[in-house]
């Protein structure tokens, strides 16, 4: 079975055996520590990002569990109020800046983008390595600040509180500022790679949808990240020297902070979910063996979300004292994001229509993803309905909503990508049974954690509460139980994937029989991705039509 033969031009990918000795996989091409730490290979950089991202996910996850345990009882349970405030700040900061924003672009984007474009590497390999070290430097500084003195402002750093608090604001903010540069550098690298390094045959509308999603994400990163960078510097200066930019006692404006903050942080939500949408487009096509239903609609809607996402930030500020008219404007624009997301959902379901579905672990995550996106998206629309937001704003309803769409969808996509591309990255397979069991456990645990939080929000429980009135307890206990289930799911995954990494069976080149472009090279790929001359890609990705019956599709 050579799935590539019908797509690649003859001679483009010689049989692997011939060149095996001369072209070892990227994993074994150089085994010294130095060969890893100073590598410019996008695949190795992707793997190193994977290591750090997983580590920070563990840190953020442990703090999430501490929060849930604290909220088991209405009063103090395991920590004091200050510790709790620092805990939720650390949970938010680590999860957002160190896990969710880099998770898919820096790991899978780095690894897959050049493969999907038929390129040997990204456009700026050394810059790519630099982005890893910038990320680590920022992470170390931020974590050092959080553990030495701690920060209790919440991840939003709202002024004037962040300008007044005596906790360690400066190093944490400066750390986040540095991490922003990593994000910008990665974004620029991906944009240039997409523009200049596509192999012959890969026109814009033959690019895999994952590339479209990463491209749209990179545009947001490059345009929005500088704003929060400047903002973080301003707050640091305000906190250290009493700058007076945001403090009304010195003539500043606290609402200005919120405008600048959400101008980045709202698009940042799409930095987190757009790559997930891309991963899911690949996975649904592979496992239902179908071309994407409405390829162009899905591609354009990524750009649409990226664009409109810049004009919806004010929906975080409906009750901040901004004008009624501004509330209305931001409300309408928020609805448009919902429409673009709906287009994607309908087209994914359409892709399964008349497909050939194989229900493997990544597809199980696709199901979970579909549910979280629809439910999270719909509650987002409900929150964009201005008058309803007056009631829900800053309650647990919002917490549940953004965990569903931002965290739920991203985690589903991250795990789906990890399972889908595991054979590609390591050339080994994992135990399918354990995969399905843990997927079920995680989807169940996630729902059990966050559905009670929607109800808590309806009932009126504000977020960031260390203590709460007794009527909220039952739902909090349910949520904590769900979080425990979720943790078990992750432990199981960690165990069988580590096992597979060491003892897993060889997967072969293309275990899913996918017609995604990245499967055309070896698994794991050699250092320069493709052996022999420049590969050629005459067909669109995920073209599963029987060659004997194939009508050449019209360019729709």
């Amino acid at each position, binding site marked *: 079975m050579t799935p590539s033969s019908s797509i690649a031009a003859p001679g483009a990918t010689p049989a692997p055996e011939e060149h095996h000795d001369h072209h070892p996989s990227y994993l074994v091409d150089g085994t010294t520590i130095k060969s890893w730490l100073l590598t410019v290979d996008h695949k190795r950089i992707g793997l190193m990002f994977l290591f750090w991202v997983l580590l920070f996910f563990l840190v953020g996850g442990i703090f999430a569990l501490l929060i849930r345990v604290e909220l088991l009882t209405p009063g103090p349970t395991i920590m004091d109020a200050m510790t709790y405030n620092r805990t939720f700040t650390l949970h938010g900061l680590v999860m957002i800046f160190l896990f969710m924003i880099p998770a898919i672009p820096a790991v899978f984007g780095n690894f897959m983008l050049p493969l999907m474009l038929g390129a040997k590497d990204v456009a700026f390999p050394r810059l790519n390595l630099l982005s890893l070290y910038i990320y680590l430097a920022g992470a170390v500084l931020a974590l050092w600040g959080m553990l030495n003195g701690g920060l209790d402002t919440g991840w939003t750093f*709202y002024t004037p509180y962040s300008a007044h608090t005596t906790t360690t604001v400066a190093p944490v903010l400066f750390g986040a500022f540095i991490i922003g540069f990593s994000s910008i550098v990665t974004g620029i690298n991906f944009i240039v790679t997409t523009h200049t390094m596509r192999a012959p045959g890969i026109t814009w509308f033959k690019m895999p949808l994952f590339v479209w999603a990463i491209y749209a994400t990179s545009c947001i990163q490059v345009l929005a990240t500088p704003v929060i960078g400047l903002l973080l510097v301003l707050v640091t200066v305000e906190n250290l020297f009493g700058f007076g930019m945001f403090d009304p006692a010195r003539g500043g404006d606290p609402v200005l902070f919120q405008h600048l903050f959400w101008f980045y942080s709202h698009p940042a939500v799409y930095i987190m979910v757009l790559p997930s949408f891309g991963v899911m487009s690949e996975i649904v096509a592979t496992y239902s*063996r179908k071309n994407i239903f*409405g390829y162009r609609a899905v591609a354009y809607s990524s750009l649409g979300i990226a664009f409109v996402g810049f004009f919806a930030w004010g929906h975080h500020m409906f009750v901040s004292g901004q004008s009624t008219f501004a509330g209305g404007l931001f409300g309408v624009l928020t609805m448009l994001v919902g429409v673009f997301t709906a287009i994607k959902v309908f087209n994914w379901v359409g892709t399964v229509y008349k497909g050939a*579905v194989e229900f493997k672990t990544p597809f199980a995550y696709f199901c979970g993803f579909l549910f979280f996106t629809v439910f999270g998206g719909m509650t987002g629309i409900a929150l964009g309905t201005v008058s*309803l937001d007056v009631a829900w704003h800053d309650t647990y309803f919002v917490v549940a909503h953004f965990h569903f769409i931002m965290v739920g969808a991203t985690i589903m996509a991250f795990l789906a990508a990890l399972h889908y591309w595991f054979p590609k990255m390591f050339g080994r397979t994992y135990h399918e049974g354990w995969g399905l069991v843990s997927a079920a456990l995680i989807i169940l645990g996630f729902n059990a954690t966050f559905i009670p939080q929607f109800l808590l929000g309806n009932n009126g429980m504000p977020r*960031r509460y260390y203590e709460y009135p007794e009527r909220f307890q039952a739902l909090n206990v349910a949520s904590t139980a769900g979080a425990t289930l979720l943790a078990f799911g992750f432990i199981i995954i960690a165990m069988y994937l580590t096992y597979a990494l060491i003892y897993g069976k060889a997967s072969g080149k293309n275990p899913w029989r996918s017609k995604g472009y990245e499967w055309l090279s070896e698994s794991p790929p050699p250092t320069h991705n493709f052996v022999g001359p420049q590969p050629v890609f005459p067909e669109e990705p995920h073209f599963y039509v029987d060659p004997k019956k194939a009508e050449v599709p019209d360019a729709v």
Partner: protein
Amino acid sequence: MSELLNNILFLPEAASTFAERIDTLHHFVVGTTMVMSTAVGMAALFFFFRYRRRLPAQATEYIVPTLKTEFLFVSVPLVFFLTWFGIGFRDFTWVTTPPKDSMDVYVMGKQWMWKFSYPEGPNGVNVLHVPANRPVRLLITSRDVLHSFYVPAFRIKMDALPGRYTQIWFEATKPGTYQVLCTEYCGLSHSKMLAEVVVLPQEEYENWIQEQRRGRLQDRQDALADNSLVPPVARMVEQGQVLAGTQGCLKCHSVDGSQHIGPTFLGMYDRVEQLEDGQTIRVDEAYITQSMMDPGAHLVAGYQNVMPTYQGKLQGPETAAIVEYIKSLRTPNVREGASEGPAYDAIQ
């Protein structure tokens, strides 16, 4: 029916006119959402089962949506989303524009308590008394960091910002006691920044206010009161008059209508002023506050930009007292009498 839905959705008792509007829209949105999500989910599940793979490398048909299909994908959600938005924005406009005859209460957030001042006295900490079935406008500010005033039973919420007044109004429909929570993170004891709204029938409210004016604080009020926060003069207008004198306002602003360095206070409230830049502005609490803190922001035509800022010189309650004093110098063009609904027509 709606009672049952409220129980399923864990909604607290609906005790204001706004709450009833919110809950109706909430049921509509949640209902439609559930039906549509279920439909999409069922379709997906049906496809997973109906089109399961039978051969390892099965070929499929090349299917692309027609323009009509894509149009449906876009227009159906758009119509629903915009409908919800339309209703929601109408209600939002309604709740942010208080009726003219609403009763005013000043609310000040402070780490970590709520202080309430009635223009005609009294003051109180952490307990707000209001009459039932009467619009109450809250003028909200903060003494330190951001807070947010939230009454779940009324479904209302508004941020408290230092150096600025925000407003929201409600009309409580049922006598009773309702919880007030702070929903903007404000530091160590954020979750202890609780207060309550006591809604009294009109008659009892009148009695309560009479008692307060005689100087007899209720026991609970007494226990919760922080004396440092209660200004010496209970009536804000009187306090404002004293402050206007001691702070030097009256050196430039007359109170009898005569022209001076600054515009006269007489009849200033609710007047439409012609500004230096050609625009007009209606003088309300927000404009008066802004003019005290940033006098040059909207200069009335014909006056020099000579007023110093009072930012940092006046505390929240003092600002409120001066605003109340200016409001007390009314002229007949401030309409009084029975409510005719919101000041601005809600968008239909």
